[in-house]
Protein backbone atom coordinates (compact mmCIF):
# COMPACT_ATOMS: atom_id res chain seq x y z
CA UNK A 1 0.00 0.00 0.00
CA UNK A 2 1.21 3.47 -0.86
CA UNK A 3 2.27 5.79 1.98
CA UNK A 4 -0.20 8.25 0.46
CA UNK A 5 -3.76 7.10 -0.20
CA UNK A 6 -4.91 7.75 -3.78
CA UNK A 7 -8.02 9.89 -4.15
CA UNK A 8 -11.24 8.00 -4.93
CA UNK A 9 -11.98 8.12 -8.63
CA UNK A 10 -15.21 10.06 -8.15
CA UNK A 11 -13.33 12.80 -6.28
CA UNK A 12 -11.56 13.75 -9.51
CA UNK A 13 -13.87 16.02 -11.44
CA UNK A 14 -11.47 18.15 -13.52
CA UNK A 15 -12.48 17.26 -17.12
CA UNK A 16 -8.97 17.88 -18.43
CA UNK A 17 -7.48 15.47 -15.91
CA UNK A 18 -10.21 12.91 -16.54
CA UNK A 19 -9.48 13.08 -20.29
CA UNK A 20 -5.77 12.51 -19.65
CA UNK A 21 -6.61 9.62 -17.32
CA UNK A 22 -8.67 8.02 -20.08
CA UNK A 23 -5.68 8.46 -22.42
CA UNK A 24 -3.43 6.81 -19.83
CA UNK A 25 -5.84 3.90 -19.35
CA UNK A 26 -5.96 3.33 -23.11
CA UNK A 27 -2.17 3.39 -23.39
CA UNK A 28 -1.68 1.41 -20.17
CA UNK A 29 0.94 3.85 -18.84
CA UNK A 30 0.23 5.35 -16.42
CA UNK A 31 -2.91 3.67 -15.14
CA UNK A 32 -5.33 5.73 -13.05
CA UNK A 33 -3.47 5.02 -9.80
CA UNK A 34 -0.75 7.52 -10.73
CA UNK A 35 -3.34 10.17 -11.57
CA UNK A 36 -5.31 9.52 -8.37
CA UNK A 37 -2.13 10.16 -6.37
CA UNK A 38 -0.90 13.26 -8.23
CA UNK A 39 -4.45 14.65 -8.24
CA UNK A 40 -3.80 15.48 -4.58
CA UNK A 41 -1.72 18.36 -5.97
CA UNK A 42 -4.29 19.56 -8.53
CA UNK A 43 -2.18 22.35 -10.03
CA UNK A 44 0.54 19.82 -10.89
CA UNK A 45 -1.61 16.85 -11.85
CA UNK A 46 -2.58 17.94 -15.37
CA UNK A 47 0.92 19.04 -16.52
CA UNK A 48 2.50 15.93 -14.97
CA UNK A 49 0.04 13.57 -16.65
CA UNK A 50 0.32 15.39 -19.98
CA UNK A 51 4.13 15.36 -19.90
CA UNK A 52 4.21 11.68 -18.96
CA UNK A 53 1.89 10.72 -21.81
CA UNK A 54 3.35 13.03 -24.46
CA UNK A 55 6.98 12.17 -23.76
CA UNK A 56 6.20 8.46 -23.94
CA UNK A 57 3.65 8.08 -26.72
CA UNK A 58 4.47 11.04 -28.98
CA UNK A 59 7.62 12.33 -30.65
CA UNK A 60 10.01 11.12 -33.29
CA UNK A 61 11.66 8.17 -31.52
CA UNK A 62 10.24 4.63 -31.84
CA UNK A 63 7.67 4.04 -29.10
CA UNK A 64 8.82 0.44 -28.54
CA UNK A 65 12.35 1.63 -27.77
CA UNK A 66 11.01 4.25 -25.35
CA UNK A 67 8.91 1.60 -23.63
CA UNK A 68 12.00 -0.55 -23.05
CA UNK A 69 13.88 2.52 -21.76
CA UNK A 70 10.98 3.44 -19.46
CA UNK A 71 10.94 -0.03 -17.90
CA UNK A 72 14.75 -0.07 -17.61
CA UNK A 73 14.60 3.24 -15.72
CA UNK A 74 11.72 2.16 -13.45
CA UNK A 75 13.56 -1.07 -12.59
CA UNK A 76 16.78 0.86 -11.93
CA UNK A 77 14.86 3.28 -9.69
CA UNK A 78 13.43 0.32 -7.76
CA UNK A 79 9.88 1.42 -8.60
CA UNK A 80 7.82 -1.76 -8.83
CA UNK A 81 4.66 0.13 -9.72
CA UNK A 82 5.74 1.85 -12.97
CA UNK A 83 7.99 -1.12 -13.82
CA UNK A 84 4.93 -3.38 -13.77
CA UNK A 85 2.92 -1.32 -16.28
CA UNK A 86 3.02 -2.06 -19.99
CA UNK A 87 2.19 0.09 -23.01
CA UNK A 88 -0.66 -1.45 -25.00
CA UNK A 89 0.55 0.52 -28.02
CA UNK A 90 4.05 -1.02 -27.79
CA UNK A 91 2.54 -4.49 -27.36
CA UNK A 92 0.38 -3.96 -30.44
CA UNK A 93 3.55 -2.95 -32.30
CA UNK A 94 5.07 -6.32 -31.38
CA UNK A 95 7.09 -5.59 -28.24
CA UNK A 96 7.44 -8.76 -26.12
CA UNK A 97 8.57 -9.38 -22.53
CA UNK A 98 11.65 -11.17 -23.84
CA UNK A 99 12.58 -8.11 -25.89
CA UNK A 100 12.02 -5.88 -22.86
CA UNK A 101 14.29 -8.04 -20.69
CA UNK A 102 16.93 -8.17 -23.42
CA UNK A 103 16.74 -4.38 -23.71
CA UNK A 104 17.11 -3.94 -19.96
CA UNK A 105 19.84 -6.48 -19.26
CA UNK A 106 21.59 -7.55 -22.47
CA UNK A 107 21.27 -4.80 -25.07
CA UNK A 108 25.06 -4.73 -25.66
CA UNK A 109 24.98 -8.41 -26.68
CA UNK A 110 25.20 -8.44 -30.49
CA UNK A 111 23.16 -11.63 -30.58
CA UNK A 112 20.10 -9.77 -29.24
CA UNK A 113 19.75 -7.78 -32.44
CA UNK A 114 19.64 -4.21 -31.18
CA UNK A 115 20.87 -1.66 -33.74
CA UNK A 116 23.78 0.66 -32.87
CA UNK A 117 21.29 3.53 -32.54
CA UNK A 118 19.14 1.53 -30.11
CA UNK A 119 22.20 0.44 -28.11
CA UNK A 120 23.27 4.08 -27.81
CA UNK A 121 19.83 5.17 -26.60
CA UNK A 122 19.63 2.33 -24.07
CA UNK A 123 23.17 3.15 -22.87
CA UNK A 124 22.03 6.78 -22.46
CA UNK A 125 19.19 5.64 -20.16
CA UNK A 126 21.49 3.19 -18.36
CA UNK A 127 24.33 5.62 -17.70
CA UNK A 128 22.41 8.80 -16.91
CA UNK A 129 21.72 7.81 -13.31
CA UNK A 130 24.33 5.09 -12.90
CA UNK A 131 27.31 7.24 -13.83
CA UNK A 132 26.42 10.61 -15.38
CA UNK A 133 30.14 11.40 -15.73
CA UNK A 134 30.25 8.89 -18.58
CA UNK A 135 27.60 10.90 -20.42
CA UNK A 136 30.26 13.31 -21.64
CA UNK A 137 31.23 14.98 -24.92
CA UNK A 138 32.53 11.70 -26.38
CA UNK A 139 29.23 10.03 -25.49
CA UNK A 140 27.18 12.79 -27.15
CA UNK A 141 29.47 12.67 -30.21
CA UNK A 142 28.64 8.96 -30.51
CA UNK A 143 24.92 9.65 -30.01
CA UNK A 144 25.01 12.22 -32.83
CA UNK A 145 26.15 9.51 -35.26
CA UNK A 146 22.76 7.84 -34.83
CA UNK A 147 20.31 10.49 -33.65
CA UNK A 148 19.55 14.09 -34.57
CA UNK A 149 19.98 16.75 -31.88
CA UNK A 150 16.18 17.00 -31.65
CA UNK A 151 15.94 13.26 -31.04
CA UNK A 152 18.70 13.42 -28.41
CA UNK A 153 16.77 16.14 -26.57
CA UNK A 154 13.60 14.06 -26.86
CA UNK A 155 15.42 11.04 -25.43
CA UNK A 156 17.22 12.98 -22.69
CA UNK A 157 14.09 14.75 -21.49
CA UNK A 158 12.17 11.44 -21.61
CA UNK A 159 14.84 9.71 -19.51
CA UNK A 160 15.00 12.55 -16.97
CA UNK A 161 11.25 12.81 -16.53
CA UNK A 162 10.42 9.12 -16.34
CA UNK A 163 13.28 8.38 -13.95
CA UNK A 164 12.18 11.30 -11.76
CA UNK A 165 8.60 10.04 -11.64
CA UNK A 166 9.79 6.49 -10.92
CA UNK A 167 11.84 7.74 -7.95
CA UNK A 168 8.80 9.71 -6.76
CA UNK A 169 6.52 6.65 -6.98
CA UNK A 170 9.16 4.52 -5.27
CA UNK A 171 9.37 7.02 -2.42
CA UNK A 172 5.62 6.66 -1.91
CA UNK A 173 5.92 2.88 -1.82
CA UNK A 174 3.27 2.62 -4.55
CA UNK A 175 2.36 -0.89 -5.69
CA UNK A 176 0.48 -1.88 -8.81
CA UNK A 177 -3.28 -2.13 -8.37
CA UNK A 178 -3.36 -5.67 -9.79
Amino acid at each position, binding site marked *: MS*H*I*APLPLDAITDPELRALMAEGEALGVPDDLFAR*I*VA*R*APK*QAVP*LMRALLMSHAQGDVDHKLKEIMRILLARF*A*GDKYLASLRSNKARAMGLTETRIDDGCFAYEDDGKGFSEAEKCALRYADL*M*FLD*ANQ*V*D*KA*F*YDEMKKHWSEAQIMEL*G*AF*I*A*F*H*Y*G*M*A*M*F*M*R*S*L*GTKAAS
Partner: protein
Amino acid sequence: MALRYSELMSVDPDAVDAAFFDELRQHYSDDEIVELGAFIGFNLGYHTFFGTLKFYPLFSPDGRLVSQAESEKLYGAAPASLKPEAAE
Protein backbone atom coordinates in the same frame (compact mmCIF):
# COMPACT_ATOMS: atom_id res chain seq x y z
CA MET B 1 11.91 17.48 6.64
CA ALA B 2 11.26 18.64 3.07
CA LEU B 3 14.97 19.12 2.47
CA ARG B 4 15.66 15.68 3.95
CA TYR B 5 13.02 14.20 1.60
CA SER B 6 14.76 15.83 -1.33
CA GLU B 7 18.18 14.58 -0.25
CA LEU B 8 17.16 11.03 0.65
CA MET B 9 15.15 10.37 -2.52
CA SER B 10 18.41 10.71 -4.42
CA VAL B 11 21.09 9.33 -2.09
CA ASP B 12 19.26 6.78 0.08
CA PRO B 13 15.73 6.04 -1.18
CA ASP B 14 15.39 3.06 1.22
CA ALA B 15 15.41 5.58 4.08
CA VAL B 16 12.17 7.11 2.73
CA ASP B 17 10.05 4.55 4.57
CA ALA B 18 6.86 4.45 6.62
CA ALA B 19 8.60 5.99 9.64
CA PHE B 20 9.90 8.80 7.46
CA PHE B 21 6.39 9.49 6.16
CA ASP B 22 4.99 9.48 9.71
CA GLU B 23 7.50 12.21 10.56
CA LEU B 24 6.81 14.09 7.31
CA ARG B 25 3.07 14.06 8.13
CA GLN B 26 3.71 15.92 11.36
CA HIS B 27 4.66 18.93 9.23
CA TYR B 28 2.91 18.51 5.88
CA SER B 29 -0.49 17.30 4.68
CA ASP B 30 -0.70 14.32 2.31
CA ASP B 31 -1.51 16.74 -0.53
CA GLU B 32 1.59 18.80 0.23
CA ILE B 33 3.72 15.65 0.38
CA VAL B 34 2.57 14.68 -3.12
CA GLU B 35 3.40 18.19 -4.34
CA LEU B 36 6.86 17.96 -2.76
CA GLY B 37 7.55 14.43 -3.99
CA ALA B 38 6.63 15.16 -7.61
CA PHE B 39 8.70 18.36 -7.52
CA ILE B 40 11.71 16.51 -6.12
CA GLY B 41 11.41 13.66 -8.65
CA PHE B 42 11.14 16.12 -11.54
CA ASN B 43 14.20 18.06 -10.40
CA LEU B 44 16.20 14.92 -9.63
CA GLY B 45 15.75 13.77 -13.21
CA TYR B 46 16.23 17.06 -15.01
CA HIS B 47 19.23 18.35 -13.08
CA THR B 48 21.11 15.15 -13.86
CA PHE B 49 20.17 15.41 -17.54
CA PHE B 50 21.06 19.11 -17.77
CA GLY B 51 24.33 18.38 -15.97
CA THR B 52 25.37 16.06 -18.80
CA LEU B 53 24.73 18.81 -21.38
CA LYS B 54 27.43 21.01 -19.82
CA PHE B 55 25.91 24.33 -20.67
CA TYR B 56 26.83 27.56 -18.93
CA PRO B 57 24.89 30.72 -18.04
CA LEU B 58 23.95 32.93 -21.01
CA PHE B 59 24.90 36.08 -19.13
CA SER B 60 28.07 37.19 -17.38
CA PRO B 61 27.83 38.39 -13.76
CA ASP B 62 27.70 42.01 -15.04
CA GLY B 63 24.78 41.20 -17.35
CA ARG B 64 26.49 40.80 -20.75
CA LEU B 65 25.23 38.14 -23.18
CA VAL B 66 28.26 35.86 -23.63
CA SER B 67 29.18 32.83 -25.72
CA GLN B 68 29.29 29.38 -24.10
CA ALA B 69 33.11 29.38 -24.46
CA GLU B 70 33.41 32.71 -22.61
CA SER B 71 30.83 31.64 -20.05
CA GLU B 72 32.79 28.47 -19.31
CA LYS B 73 35.89 30.61 -18.67
CA LEU B 74 33.88 32.92 -16.39
CA TYR B 75 32.04 30.33 -14.37
CA GLY B 76 34.35 27.32 -14.51
CA ALA B 77 33.21 24.02 -13.10
CA ALA B 78 30.89 25.36 -10.38
CA PRO B 79 27.64 27.21 -11.07
CA ALA B 80 27.93 30.82 -9.89
CA SER B 81 24.83 30.47 -7.76
CA LEU B 82 26.62 27.87 -5.61
CA LYS B 83 29.54 30.18 -4.87
CA PRO B 84 29.29 31.69 -1.38
CA GLU B 85 29.56 35.28 -2.69
CA ALA B 86 26.44 34.76 -4.86
CA ALA B 87 24.33 34.52 -1.72
CA GLU B 88 25.62 37.86 -0.36
